[in-house]
């Protein structure tokens, strides 16, 4: 499914090379039903493992005897045990599920645990990313200083000093591939030179460009804009090499470099 909401508010164009896309869907929008109380979830988990886990699995994903309950229609339709309760109390004898005579409070706790499980599955923005440092740091360092030519612009003692301490591993992975701005901090702006049909060229930091207008901040700090059809524009994008490398990385090179960068704490 396509999940980018509210285009105008999510995409902030700061400069030619710096566009910040918002995360696909904020957590609050994915979870639309009330989040159950933590203590009820914990009690329910214990009760579930003791009563139901043998067949449905300790995490309710299903086991040898019983189906996955996280995606069960009865569980999803349930409110505070009103649909789950009758199934627990009556069992499903012809499908091999015995009846359990649990008090209402325990059924509500189990319902709270199952709701927490479904919400964890729904809330993809909170899924934990596993270990991304799976490459060979030595090979990554060789690539960094060799065919990757990363050392043309970067150095472990300079701009990358402590970089692995500044970002979460998956942030480091995304940012080394293409250093965007936003929450990870500002990126390098593009430079631009505007050459009018007559008169002197004007250089500065690119602020804005579409098919019709280019806007820049000159050395004195003034904003100036020009109609594209009356000038020539020469943009210097400091991130052009990053975009080019996206087309060239092998999976191994990508993870080797990342693992090397992960050592720069």
């Amino acid at each position: 499914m396509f999940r980018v909401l509210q285009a105008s508010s999510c995409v902030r164009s700061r400069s030619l090379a710096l566009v910040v896309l918002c995360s696909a869907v904020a957590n609050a929008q994915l979870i639309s039903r009330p989040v159950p109380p933590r203590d009820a979830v914990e009690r329910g988990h214990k009760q579930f493992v003791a009563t139901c886990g043998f067949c449905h699995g300790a995490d309710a994903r299903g086991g040898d005897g019983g189906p996955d309950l996280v995606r069960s229609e009865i569980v999803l339709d349930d409110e505070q045990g009103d649909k789950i309760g009758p199934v627990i109390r009556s069992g499903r004898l012809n499908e091999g599920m015995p009846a359990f005579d649990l008090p209402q409070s325990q059924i509500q706790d189990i319902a709270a645990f199952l709701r927490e499980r479904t919400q964890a599955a729904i809330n993809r923005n909170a899924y934990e990313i596993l270990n991304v440092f799976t490459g060979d740091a030595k090979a990554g360092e060789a690539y960094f200083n060799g065919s990757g030519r990363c050392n043309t612009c970067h150095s472990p003692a300079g701009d990358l000093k402590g970089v692995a301490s500044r970002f979460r591993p998956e942030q480091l992975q995304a940012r080394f591939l293409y250093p965007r701005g936003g929450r990870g901090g500002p990126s390098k702006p593009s430079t631009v030179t505007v050459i009018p049909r007559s008169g002197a060229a004007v250089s500065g930091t690119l602020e804005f460009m579409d098919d019709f207008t280019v806007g820049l901040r000159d050395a004195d700090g003034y904003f100036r804009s020009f109609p594209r059809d009356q000038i020539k524009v020469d943009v210097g994008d400091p991130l052009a090499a990053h975009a080019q490398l996206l087309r060239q990385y092998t999976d191994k090179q990508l993870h080797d470099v990342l693992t090397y960068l992960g050592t720069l704490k």
Partner: protein
Amino acid sequence: MRRPIFAALLLTGALAAQPLNPAKLLQPPTDAWPTYNGDYTGRRFSPLKQINQSNVNALNLAWARRFTAGGRGGVQIKATPLEVNGILYFAAPDNAWAVDARSGRELWHFTWETTGGLHIGNRGLGMYGDWLFFETPDCYLISLDAKTGKMRWNRQIAEVKREYFCGAAPFVIRNHVLVGVGGDSLDVPGYLESRDPETGQVQWRWNTTPRPGEPGAETWPSKESMEHGGGMTWHPGTYDPELNLYYLGTGNPNPVYAPQSRTGDNLYTCSIVALNPDTGKMAWYFQVSPHDSHDFDNVETPVLIDGQFKGQQRKMLAQAARNGYFVLLDRTNGKNLLTAPFVEGVNWAMGIDAQGRPIPNPDMEAKPDGTLVSPTEAGAANWFAPSFSPATGLFYTHASESYGLDWRTDLSKTPEGYGGRNQTIWSQNLLQAIDYRTGKIAWSHRYPNQGGNRSGLLTTAGGLLFGGDPTSNVFAMDAASGKILWHAGLHAAVSNGPITFELDGRQYVVAGAGDMLYAFTLPR
């Protein structure tokens, strides 16, 4: 005696003027734009040429209006308005409006009190006579009286508690209102329903994924996997009245990024299917992304093309798919005529098989430590309306070259939901003009800034291509060359598909941008 007659004439005139004449659905759009795509073909091509290459640079603002939602959130107009007898009808989540096409004045505004659901967008209404139909995020189909905006009835079409959400534009074929559903957070099965326009009752339901024993079940490993296999129907298709076939693109399979519990092709997800609108029976299918694991919903409009292919006149169907491939099919039988990438860098497939289907590369599936995939989840194309001009023979679509990281986070034998995460790393927005006969790019417009573009496209017999750019300009190009002939800066980027229609002898172009509609016409 004169007064009552006068009043009666007015009343008769008003009644005769308002209902949608069903014959309009079968004609190229001129004085009406009565469906999501203007007509049944999905071409978004208008025979109007009052506005043309020689005068488009004089195009002027006729009116601009802002709309405020009742209920939740702000307005983002993703809906393509309908225009019928001088009135525009459009919707946003939980809201629908009627607007005077001459002045932009609001005639009525309907608000639905929501019970939940993802408020991602509403793509528009369907119309039958005097009745309008639209879907709400909490998955009710609402029928409104077009004259008053009063609700005739509402019918639940999916259970929001099971994580469905809805917003597709209903598609009307005779007395069938085709309604689709969305929601891939928790592995629910997709379906399309036909509802009675009079009562809202179900006429038939087509399930995207088979049930055990049905054809296609052999492409799933288990009953559990196919019943939780996704395949949403969140975007309207197209219709050929001669063949009496409705062409629909289906969504991605579930779990999304963790496909280990659903080995096989996973029919009929990520496919184009041809359905009989009277029975819901499938005549043929073509799967554009077999065993998808990249969230490549295949709902992009299947555009109907009648023309020459390799020296033969054919009835065809073309789609620029989210997975980066342009496919051309024979729409009488679903046989593939051509498959070709329409952007650079597509790396998830390792070739094209004998049937014309891209072959997914297992090494490019989401991995725990991240896989660099092109295009990214947002796709090389998406729901934003494409256009086909019979005058140029070119298929136009907004497109993105992009790279993203796919991480698999759920390594269990029975993953749930997305089972992984995605992040776009880089993307470049383009407008691609594709020669349908070869799949080759005839011309390409590369926007001088990165980022997404959600504007649909429109072509006309005036030799024009209308659309919006990523920086909130609406523009007209020479459809043959891509040269920009006119533009205007709006307060927000164009967020729907522009439409055109003739009213009082004047041709209008109307585009939505954020919470506003803008109407343009030539000065008198």
